[in-house]
């Protein structure tokens, strides 16, 4: 410092600038490092109260509750690979000593020997499930966007109707649906399988709820930029509602996959896999094994869809950069 006193003002300024630049560089370096560290620790970035012991505690709690949840399903799987003589062992075993695929083979053998080839039932199920899921997701998402984010006469009323329809549950509802179907001449067609699934309001309600959290400013901005409603819905709002979107895909797929047409369809050629499998399980000799096998078979497609959909939900910074 003593030296500095002898220097000219311009030199002092230059030195200070140098010092500043060095400090700035150091700061930048440190920020970069912190940022790298945050990136490395991905989902679980630095947050309050995060500690190893907490995480392990949570994991153990969930693990033991998970055991309770998964145990019966495990039993179903084990029962489906047990040979007949093992089903009635005393005391019952928690594993199969001599695992076999007989139950599954029987299931498919009987299914193939029935009136219509099993491939036809598979086609029915796949067709109904895909059509219902795709149409419902498209229609319900568009409608949900309008209900959540647009102001027009009738909006409040429609929102009410959607919730009330969810709550209404009556034994005669199904008869009335049958009457409507009969009037429209849809009994015993694919429409009878697909349309009732499309017309439920659960998916719509979930999408509406999720979309209502999107800031209005985002939509206004898009409007100013000249985007139409359709464009805003599919280009801006939907990508920000990915978790909800994936959830309704799971719901719809599951509902459609498990549909049995409930009396609206009686033609053998139109029956879906659940109906056929239930028929077999109800009449088979070694019922326990057959029922378990049918439950396992029916569970696999929804499970796959679930895993695929969940993988797709990347925890995006939904409204990053938006300030309300």
């Amino acid at each position, binding site marked *: 410092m003593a030296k500095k006193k002898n220097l000219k003002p311009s030199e002092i300024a230059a030195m200070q600038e140098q010092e500043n630049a060095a400090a700035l560089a150091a700061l930048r370096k440190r920020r970069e490092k912190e940022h790298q560290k945050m990136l490395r620790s991905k*989902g679980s*970035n630095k*947050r*309050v*109260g995060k500690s190893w012991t907490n*995480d392990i505690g949570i994991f153990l709690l*969930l693990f033991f*509750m*998970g055991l*309770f*949840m998964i145990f*019966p*399903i495990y*039993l179903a799987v084990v029962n489906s690979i047990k040979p007949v003589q093992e089903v009635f062992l005393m*005391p*019952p075993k928690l594993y199969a000593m001599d695992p076999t695929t007989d139950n599954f083979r029987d299931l498919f053998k009987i299914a193939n020997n029935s009136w219509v080839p099993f491939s036809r039932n598979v086609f029915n199920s796949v067709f109904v499930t895909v059509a219902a899921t795709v149409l419902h997701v498209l*229609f319900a998402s568009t*409608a949900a966007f*309008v*209900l959540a984010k647009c*102001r*027009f*006469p009738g909006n409040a009323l429609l929102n009410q*109707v959607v919730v009330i*329809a969810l*709550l*209404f*549950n*009556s*034994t*005669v*509802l199904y008869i009335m649906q049958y009457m*409507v179907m009969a009037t429209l001449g849809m009994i015993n067609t694919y429409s009878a399988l697909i*349309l009732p699934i499309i*017309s439920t*309001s*659960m998916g*719509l309600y*979930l999408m509406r*709820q*999720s979309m209502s959290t999107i800031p209005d400013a985002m939509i206004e901005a898009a409007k100013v930029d000249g985007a139409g*409603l359709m464009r805003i819905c599919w280009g801006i709002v939907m990508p920000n*509602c990915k*978790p*909800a979107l994936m*959830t309704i895909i799971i719901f719809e797929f*599951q509902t459609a996959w498990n549909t049995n047409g409930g009396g609206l369809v009686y033609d053998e050629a139109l029956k879906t896999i659940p109906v056929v499998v239930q028929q077999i399980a109800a009449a088979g000799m070694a019922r*326990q094994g057959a*029922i378990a096998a049918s*439950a396992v078979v029916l*569970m696999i497609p*929804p*499970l796959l869809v*679930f*895993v695929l959909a*969940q993988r797709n*939900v990347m*925890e995006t*910074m939904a*409204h990053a950069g938006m300030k309300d």
Partner: protein
Amino acid sequence: MAEAAKKEILLPSERKMSRKERRDYTLHEMKRNYMCYLMLAPFMIFFIIFTVIPVIMSLPIGFTDFDMASFPRWVGFQNFYTMFMDDDVFMKSIRTTLIFAIFTGPLSYVMSFMLAWLINELHQSLKTLFTLIFYAPSMAGNIYFVWQLIFSGDQYGYLNAFLMELGFTTSAMQWLTDGRLVLGCVIVVQLWVSMGAGFLAMRAGFQGIDKSMYEAGAIEGIKNRWQELLFITIPSMGPSLMFAAVMQIVSAFTVDIVGRTLAGFPSTDYQVHTIMTHAFDYGWVRYEMGYASAICFVLFIVMLVCNNLVGKMLGKYVD
């Protein structure tokens, strides 16, 4: 909320508007927003034909005597009178339904929320796994039949075999036919299948929360996970909470099929005979559709009231 905001803006002009003017204004607004109706149309057409119309058609059936063979005969409030005055089983079913409703309603709701939250605190790869595990029972349509193996009344039942092996009991317990045990057993199974739509919606709600909110919260002085939950998480997932509440109300009051499958129909001493089971009994066993609809109508009103109550409670966070 949207409606209220609109009214506030309109108020000064609204006072002056005559009925005709208001109608013209509405028409003008409808024309201006025609795109909204176009986007609603595909869903609403199906929704109205296959859901709204059947709902409206089934409302008056509760006031009739209808056996599915002859045309419904109007009886006024007769069904409701019988229900509350002469039907002992119905009175008992109200009690049973309320017991189930407490477990599969509030309890399961809080449990779903806590589980969804705890899962959210885990590492990414574990999240999917645990969500799957807890949701799995609701995924497979009728997988609850497995509990029949567990609760089976003979020595082949897993629970009996387990208890006898350990020496807790010497003889097999009649889990599903003993009047004192069956309610507890069915409640356990009901809880097991109750991590359904609501739980998954909550998971989606958690996933949709902006991560930067937590960072901002940490800077603002939030100290622990509880504060984080209370001040950031819950307020920003209000709509998902409302959805889950509606789902939970529906499943809590319509408990039926699980008990019927496991405990048989009718169950011992009507122990797991819920209002929905009662409606099933009258509708599909005795073909007294009028009475069954009246029962469902009462249930619908109760659910509507509950829905409004929950809506009020969550009102702060919704919309």
